């Protein structure tokens, strides 16, 4: 069953990976993706807002879908909220499976889908004090859409 967390605290990729694989001998591949805050255009911080309750439900729904589509033995999704400075990790997706293709595909699916379907909003704060809400990207919709199942 997937593990979902929304938290202000940082996460530890090594510890989360170890938790998924500890004591197991049926995992052939462990894929991960960590999204980090970049210092583009003088960015001083990202402030992430979420919808408590709905956000966790949405993450669980997406993770449950990955769990149903690929033969996973483990899946962890952690998304941070609050104020993050450049260099800090924002999101972790971790997938384990007997075979590498399932782990890699489920990991890519989850991060693409998170971008378009999980209720988080990013506000950028700049060194000059200016601030603006990040706009949703059409390229993210396209990345998520490629995972849509054929009708």
């Amino acid at each position, binding site marked *: 069953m997937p593990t979902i967390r929304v938290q202000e605290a940082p996460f530890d990729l090594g510890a989360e990976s170890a938790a998924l694989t500890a004591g197991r001998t049926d995992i052939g591949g462990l894929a991960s993706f960590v999204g980090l805050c970049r210092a583009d255009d003088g960015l001083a911080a990202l402030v*992430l807002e979420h*919808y408590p309750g709905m956000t966790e439900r949405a993450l669980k729904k997406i993770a449950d879908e990955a769990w149903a589509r690929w033969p996973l033995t483990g899946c962890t999704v952690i998304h941070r909220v609050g104020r993050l400075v450049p260099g800090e990790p924002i999101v972790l997706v971790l997938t384990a499976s007997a075979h590498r293709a399932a782990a890699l595909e489920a990991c890519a699916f989850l991060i693409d889908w998170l*971008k378009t379907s999980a*209720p*988080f*909003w990013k506000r950028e704060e700049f060194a000059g004090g200016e601030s603006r*809400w990040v706009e*949703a990207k059409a390229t*993210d919709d396209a990345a998520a859409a490629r995972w849509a199942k054929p009708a």
Partner: protein
Amino acid sequence: MKILYFAWVRQKVGLAEEDVAPPDSVGDVAGLVAWLAGRSPGHAAAFADPRQVRAAVNQDFATPDQKVAAGDEVAFFPPVTGG
């Protein structure tokens, strides 16, 4: 009916949440948006272009024709930008 606002929708409305009792003629998300837009200049600014605003009813994404009723939790927010 409990209404929640997030991100710039919250900032424009000037409230994170409010309890409202719309008239019986408000039966779906689109009707609720039109009614809320009349409550204050901030509400009007937030809903000035309804295509920029997404909605959720009882914590599930909702389309404009989704029914709403007393007791529902309805949220309005911009397109999501997580990940």
